[in-house]
């Protein structure tokens, strides 16, 4: 088993008929890292993770997970990974304890370890006093932590989480990421997909995927420096009106709503601040503040996707 990389794939491709869901994705994940796989819904995140877990055979490409070949050793891979799918995949009509017992059996956890593993999961998920409750009756955050616990009963070296935090309240999401960080600290490699860009901050390493293709990878801090443009945050009273005006003004490359403010992508922050300020004042929509901000992961993503699109259309023309 390769000690350095828990996951290593080259040119991973999956086609469904004519549709290319995943297009030549290459990535490597170091052991003990939290690796974030980011992209909008339908970008190919789930398809990639399912190929890595041995649930789906790639159309082409090569790679190893936990040291085993993804093309030929999927059964062995399954014994060395934990996987939590997008839906909560516990049995609703089983109690907390019955679910744990079931997965303990399925993962063949040695008899002498069972008691300890069960207590660990109950403790980790905060469900010790709810062990006899039906899983159906649990709130989202608890269900999710129980699902995580059931996926790691056999202490897999690699954990795959497919959109683990979708549909869970913000506080539970926060707690969940704390759990992930703890596991990584103990040496578990965590491969996690999400479409919440702000969750990227919790990852050691990121890969951005859009329409089946990888458009960037690196550490969160690095990725924020890859875009050459600056980001302006514009505070106004009527954001919708201003959004429309600015889109047609030619002063900004890209403008989008960001909470109750606007984020604009511009070539040069200094020059644009004055230009946009004057432009809005001239139309009676004066801004209450225009400041340059550090790009958020969402800004980075939007700008990278746009760049990629421009490249591919240029590539198609020449």
């Amino acid at each position, binding site marked *: 088993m390769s000690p350095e990389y828990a996951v290593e794939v080259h040119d991973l491709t999956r086609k469904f008929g004519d549709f290319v869901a995943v297009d030549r994705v290459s990535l490597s994940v170091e052991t003990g890292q939290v690796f974030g796989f980011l992209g909008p819904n339908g970008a190919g995140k789930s398809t990639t993770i399912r190929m890595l877990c*041995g649930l789906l055979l790639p159309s082409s490409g090569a790679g190893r997970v936990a040291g085993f070949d993804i093309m030929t050793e999927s059964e062995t891979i399954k014994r060395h990974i934990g*996987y939590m799918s997008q839906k909560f995949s516990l049995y609703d*009509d089983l109690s907390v304890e019955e679910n744990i017992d079931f997965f303990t059996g399925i*993962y063949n956890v040695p008899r002498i370890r069972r008691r300890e593993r069960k207590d660990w999961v109950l403790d980790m998920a905060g469900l010790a006093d709810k062990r006899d409750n039906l899983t159906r009756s649990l709130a989202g955050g608890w269900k999710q932590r129980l699902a995580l616990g059931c996926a790691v009963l056999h202490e897999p070296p690699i954990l795959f989480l497919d959109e683990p935090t979708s549909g869970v309240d913000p506080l539970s999401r926060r707690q969940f990421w704390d759990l992930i960080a703890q596991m990584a600290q103990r040496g578990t490699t965590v491969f996690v997909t999400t479409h919440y860009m702000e969750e990227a901050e919790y990852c050691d390493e990121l890969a951005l995927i859009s329409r089946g293709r990888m458009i960037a990878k690196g550490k969160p801090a690095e990725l924020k420096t890859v875009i050459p443009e600056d980001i302006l945050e514009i505070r106004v009273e009527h954001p919708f009106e201003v959004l429309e005006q600015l889109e047609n003004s030619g002063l900004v490359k890209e403008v989008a709503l960001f909470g109750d403010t606007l984020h604009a992508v511009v070539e040069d922050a200094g020059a644009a601040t004055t230009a946009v300020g004057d432009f809005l004042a001239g139309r009676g929509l004066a801004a209450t503040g225009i400041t340059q901000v550090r790009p958020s992961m969402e800004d980075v993503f939007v700008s990278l996707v746009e760049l990629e699109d421009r490249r591919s259309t240029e590539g198609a023309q020449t």
Partner: protein
Amino acid sequence: MKPRTFSWIRLWALVKKEFIHIVRDPRSLAMAFLMPLILLILFGYAITMDIKTLNLVVYDQDKSAASRHYVEGFPASSYFSVVATVENYADVRALLDQGRAHLALVIPPHFARDLEQGRSARVQVLADGSDANTATIALGYAEAITNRFSTTRLDSKVELAVDNRLRVWYNPELKSRWFIIPGLIAVIMTVITALLTSLTVSREWESGTMEQLIATPVQPIELFLGKMAPYFVIGVLDVLFSVAMGVWVFDVPLRGSFLFLLGVTAMFLVGGLSLGIMVSTIAKSQLVASQLAMVVTFLPAFLLSGFLYSIDNMPRFLQAVTHVVQARYFVEVLKNIFLKASPPAFVAGDLIFLGLFAVAVFAVALGKFRKKLA
């Protein structure tokens, strides 16, 4: 390297889990235990081929001692009850039209005189042929009663050339219930078994838990057997329960060996339960799976198993089709166990086909199941 190591621990975990599902879900419990009961009672009482009493209308134009004597032979046979005695043809027609009488007996004037003078007397029997089956039977009875009357009029010195003594084996009173109930049990079990497994597998697809299971080291064969084992137990209980009802509620004798019954049931269940899993590999939603399971089991089992309609009387190509209807063999063997109690060797053909069906469907279903999970 392809480690396909079978694990009893995993199988046991799956079986236990499945039992919990069944016990916790009132719907599947009802389907497993209430449905056979209801179907058995419903069909057991509804389907009968016995003709209890035939309604007779009499138009006696002769009104003699001889004609009265002749007419009395009908109610005396216990097959007929005289619902009306009328004085004209219009009333005869009305009663037949209304369906109040199955048969009309018209005795012309001079009936007694003809008999006295040693001439052959004539009577007219009219039957309602809109139910051909009943009409045929009614006419047969009428003919027999008439023949008996004729014999008593003959000189007592004359012996009949052939005196046939009829005896019906296995079901001396020809109660249709005796052959309907064993067949019905087979038909109902065919439907229930396929329905149960098709639902439990499609439920895993619907809830997304199948996706989770596939990502674990669970082997398709373990999952397959884990789904089948609990329903196998339920199937055995269902059959025993239905047989008990047949014996104690419907008064059908159980003459054959109980052990043989259990063995045949086991063979039947392997095929039936596998069929349900096969259905669920085609239809992933519970709704579609249950409908498909009904279609592929109920109609063939009901119409082509020989349970109600004799296979020998079917057109050639339909007879050929019945060979792949599993219920056909189970119906035959169950009837045998209930009524004839002949040794298993006498139904060897049916047993072989039942076994072949079980092995073939099990293998195909497992193959399809594997592909679906891969």
